[in-house]
């Protein structure tokens, strides 16, 4: 039942407020109903929408975009100022408006969080799918790779991949944000790949796949129409939880001085810079640190909500 109710139409239906009476409710609209009842998840979702609007759209209009993130001001009293009506979050050691810098940091964090998961999803689908369907060799290869990544601490592996990609003149990685996205994604795809492999292997044994095969459906059709949609819900949950993990990895890299180079203001860089002047002005640490914590909490709330909504058994 779940298998035939997916697809674009059902996905669109999932976002309708109330399904029409008498129409059978599918997996997605059921999940959406459960998600709406989860107060923490809805709070997280709403907060993320507001944060994204302010950071991506609001930064171009008054009063959020009054200052450019790198606009310096050396006049008396303009540096290391506390919060005021002119500078909501205060200013840093170069007189730059912290609110504008935190907004830039939020943009970087969100881009890296989402960008990483797009690549993780692509690699995970390719590797997980070929491990499940491509026979023994791919399967063994994937499991060995997973064993080895398990032995590496993630952050260390990200640092190693980053140092291979940095300072290259290759077309894509000269963009420092893309470089960080790649470094994180190339390390963190194993969870999604394993998940897809496990789901596919167990789905291959299910009756509806057997039925499709018995009816003579071609192999690609079985995979893409019957199996892939059914792997989606755990993958969506894993990808959602992957966003805060990637945001954390980027912030940690930036904090220890291995992130995006200045003057770009990543949240980790902001915390690290503010930390150097913590005796003079605590606000330079408090606001960016709170922004990282808020972003990660919101994504975690949404992930928790999605997990409960998509798979009620795990509650």
């Amino acid at each position: 039942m779940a298998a035939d109710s997916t697809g674009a139409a059902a996905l669109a239906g999932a976002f309708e407020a109330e399904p029409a009476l008498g129409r059978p409710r599918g997996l997605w609209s059921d999940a959406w109903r459960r998600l709406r009842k989860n107060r923490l998840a809805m709070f997280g979702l709403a907060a993320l929408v507001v944060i994204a609007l302010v950071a991506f759209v609001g930064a171009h209009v008054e009063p959020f975009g009054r200052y450019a993130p790198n606009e310096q001001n050396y006049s008396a009293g303009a540096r290391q100022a506390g919060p005021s009506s002119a500078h909501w979050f205060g200013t840093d050691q170069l007189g730059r408006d912290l609110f504008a810098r935190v907004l830039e940091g939020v943009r970087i964090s969100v881009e890296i969080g989402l960008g990483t998961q797009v690549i993780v999803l692509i690699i995970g689908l390719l590797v997980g799918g070929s491990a499940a369907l491509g026979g023994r060799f791919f399967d063994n290869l994937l499991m060995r790779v997973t064993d080895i990544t398990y032995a590496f601490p993630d952050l260390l592996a990200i640092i190693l991949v980053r140092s291979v990609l940095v300072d290259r003149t290759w077309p894509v990685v000269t963009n420092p944000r893309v470089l960080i996205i790649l470094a994180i994604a190339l390390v963190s795809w194993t969870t999604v790949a394993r998940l897809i492999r496990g789901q596919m292997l167990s789905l291959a044994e299910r009756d509806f796949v057997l039925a499709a095969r018995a009816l003579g459906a071609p192999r690609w059709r079985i995979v893409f129409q019957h199996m892939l949609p059914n792997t989606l819900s755990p993958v969506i949950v894993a990808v959602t939880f992957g966003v805060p993990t990637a945001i954390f990895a980027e912030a940690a890299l930036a904090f220890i001085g291995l992130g995006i180079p200045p003057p770009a203001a990543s949240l980790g860089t902001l915390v690290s810079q503010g930390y150097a002047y913590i005796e003079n002005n605590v606000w330079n640490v408090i606001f960016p640190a709170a922004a990282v914590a808020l972003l990660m909490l919101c994504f975690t709330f949404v992930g928790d909500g999605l997990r409960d909504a998509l798979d009620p058994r795990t509650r």
Partner: protein
Amino acid sequence: MDPMAAYALRRLLWAVPVLWAVATITFFLMHAVPGGPFTQDKALPPAVNDALNRRYHLDKPVWEQYGLYLWDSVHGDLGLSFQGDRSVTEIIRNTFFVTAQLGVLGFLVAVVIGMTLGTMSALNHNGPLDYVGVAFSTIGASVPSFIMGAFLVIFFAVDLGWFKTLGWGGPRHLTGLLDPFAWDWRRMVLPVVAISTLPTAFIARITRASVLEVLNQDYIRTARAKGLAEVRVVLRHTIKNAMIPVLTLMGPIFANLVAGSFIIETMFSIPGLGRELVNAVIRRDYAMIMGTTLFFTLIITLANLAVDLAYAVVDPRIRYR
């Protein structure tokens, strides 16, 4: 052979190819890094460059370097650091003791507080204590260690002035372990709390779920029905059985503590191996990066091995798989 010994041997032998793979991957990754270790803004005279390359075996073909590196690593020689000409093994020996103290203290705090909090939550299911516990484990699991550390520093060091934020208060050498004057607790509390927040939150969450599940079992009802005191039911029948799932968390927690040491040691200027590694990456000290990576992987692999063996001792079904 005794199944337990066979299992231990199998797991121990599996560590060898994993370590080899990690060593190989790290070696070739580091050799794919653009620019040599002596690349500077101003080019060195060719004679100096040649001499440096000879000193660090960089003039030999890559395969020979790889062979030498493997051979030396097996013998505990991780090569020479490009910075200051010190041996990597020597640096690890001098700095890991501090990192180990940070990790062990963080681990103990996480286990003791996490388990207490989780058990308290479960026994007070849906009560006020449970909400406090769940709120802590949710926030603790999603707020990074350095963010937690920054808030701790602002409150306890800048505002209250209770603790210090620079350096490490533990002894630098094994001999200082029993010397009470070698310890300065004011320099240890904040980094240990910061590094242990995330593991504490994880342990609390799993302990809560696990205790709740055990409390629903028939044998707990039997224990209560035959009139055992509640204290005895909890301490003897519940906690002991609820600890098994918590054990599986220990592997990821060790890896987390290692990663945490990079960040927390940098943050608090603690002279440990984590900070050495971060500095090595910034200075492009490849020998140091390779050596440290291999060493940390060895530690994590051994920790995972110990956890698996402990698990097999506690849960006999594992051994025969």
